[in-house]
């Protein structure tokens, strides 16, 4: 099975030195911090526009003491989670429904291929007209962008079902729901998880973009406020927070994927090797 993204190829070979990979990753991060700390101090860039890293961190510490920061963080995480959950539910249900009916699939293929590439950001004017500048406008963008990631993966997953298994299920006259549960779902699950992982990252990007451009509540809006206030330190501090959320979202998505698919050959192989 060629489960996209769920493969653990080469993991066995690298398994004996995960600590060095972590070490190298941290070293790279430390190098970046040092560069951002030293460049403004050495006068390579103006401190007015790029303050040293330590200044950003101290501004972050200041903000962490305020309720507004945590409210914004919560707004961002809530918007992200809600949008992703809707996209995931809608993507899985519609993906299985469309993928399961060849005629429907053929009829909708061109429509999907037309709607999918529309960048969510291009829908901002529409979102503002429909929902004003509130959180729902951003939610629309998040759902739209991550929905396609999930839907397309689920469609692939449904197509990947072993024809022999499918025919066997039909011969035994499985009911539709039983067939979905025992034949389609186990095959599609790795694809769903890939869609989840891709969707999680895209949802975060759109959540921040929406807040930044539309001004709906969240960290993106705080970044924009810091920018219009000329508070450069505070702005970079928030950018760092958004970066950290991105890392956390990615780790969370990978951990979820490993856990949900622990029965799957691609993940089991990794553990056995």
């Amino acid at each position: 099975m060629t489960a996209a993204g769920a493969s653990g190829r080469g993991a066995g070979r690298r398994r004996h030195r995960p600590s060095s990979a972590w070490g190298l990753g941290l070293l790279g991060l430390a190098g970046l911090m040092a560069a951002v700390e030293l460049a403004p101090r050495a006068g390579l860039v103006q401190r007015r526009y790029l303050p040293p890293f330590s200044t950003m961190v101290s501004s972050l510490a200041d903000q962490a003491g305020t309720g507004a920061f945590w409210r914004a963080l919560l707004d961002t995480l809530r918007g992200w989670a809600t949008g992703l959950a809707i996209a995931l539910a809608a993507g899985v249900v519609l993906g299985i429904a469309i993928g399961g009916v060849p005629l429907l699939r053929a009829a909708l293929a061109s429509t999907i291929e037309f709607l999918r590439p529309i960048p969510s950001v291009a829908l901002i004017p529409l979102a503002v007209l429909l929902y004003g500048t509130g959180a729902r406008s951003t939610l629309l963008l998040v759902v739209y962008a991550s929905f396609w990631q999930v839907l397309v993966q689920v469609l692939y997953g449904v197509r990947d079902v072993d024809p022999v298994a499918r025919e066997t299920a039909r011969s035994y006259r499985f009911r539709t729901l039983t067939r979905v549960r025992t034949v389609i779902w186990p095959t599609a699950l790795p694809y769903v998880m890939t869609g989840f992982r891709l969707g999680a990252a895209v949802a975060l990007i759109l959540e921040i973009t929406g807040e930044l451009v539309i001004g709906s509540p969240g960290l993106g809006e705080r970044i924009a406020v810091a920018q219009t206030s000329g508070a450069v330190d505070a702005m970079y501090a928030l950018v760092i927070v958004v970066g950290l959320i991105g890392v956390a979202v990615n780790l969370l998505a990978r951990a979820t994927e490993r856990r949900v698919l622990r029965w799957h050959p691609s993940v089991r192989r990794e553990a056995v090797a």
Partner: protein
Amino acid sequence: MTRFRAALAAAGLLLLSACGSGNDSDSGGGPATLKLSVIPIVDVAPIYLGQQQGFFAEQGLKLQIVTAQGGAAIVPAVVSGQVDFGFSNYTSLILARSKGLPLKVVGPGNASTGQAGKDFGGVLVKAGSPIRTPKDLAGKRVAVNTLNNINDTTVRASIRKAGGDPANVRFTELAFPDMLAALDKGNVDAVQVVEPFLTTGLKAGDRLVASNYVDTAPNLTIAGYFTSQKTASSKPELVKKFSAALQESLRYAAAHPDAARKVLAAYTKISPAVASALILPKWPASVDRASVDTLARLAQQDGLIKTVPDTGGLLP
């Protein structure tokens, strides 16, 4: 496969809860909720101050301030009824009006201080720039935050007043936060900025060459609070109450500039040092009709609109 069923149920629940939330503002009873969309800048300090002082609550209003990142998002939100009131400069309102958008001003927003060199907005150049007067801006690259709007028309007015020719000034669109850096790098020759960037720029050694709002008209009213014709005619009581609370807020802010500086910390990230040094706009009690007419005339003169619209229908 109970896991599958549980996952499906959880997804369904999430979907339901997500659809169900967000309609709480429509519930009746209690004080009337009003939504006001503003840009989080110095100009709207009276609103935050008025909310703190309880002027809106006194009118039986529950004020909900919705921040937007630009005026472009505010006008559609007001027209579609997503928010009841918005904040915008008059040139934008005149342009919207001439395009047939049904808008109605309900109260003044802010005005120029009327003192050259001591206004809240102006044109900055680098310390060593050969540009000395607005007249010297002819043929130069000048950054404004929005093209074909209040800032380029007033800079042109400033140049005309100094006896220069504004026809070949090359205006470039830049966001206020990016202007000082662009000026520094020499990407533009001059920038039209407002607070807090005016004070920040002056502190960094930039030089003020024009107070474009002062040069345009005495006591130029710059921005105002507006609503849609629909809200104005269907909720006259709400408009009246908002207008009254707004008047009180503006009066209070004008009388207590220190409180106005302090409230900036509540909704912006302007540092206390800059907040105590920056020049506050004037918060007048009424809209100065003459200056709105001046802005309409400038918009027509600069080709933003073909004919000067009837500003009487726009103003309260």
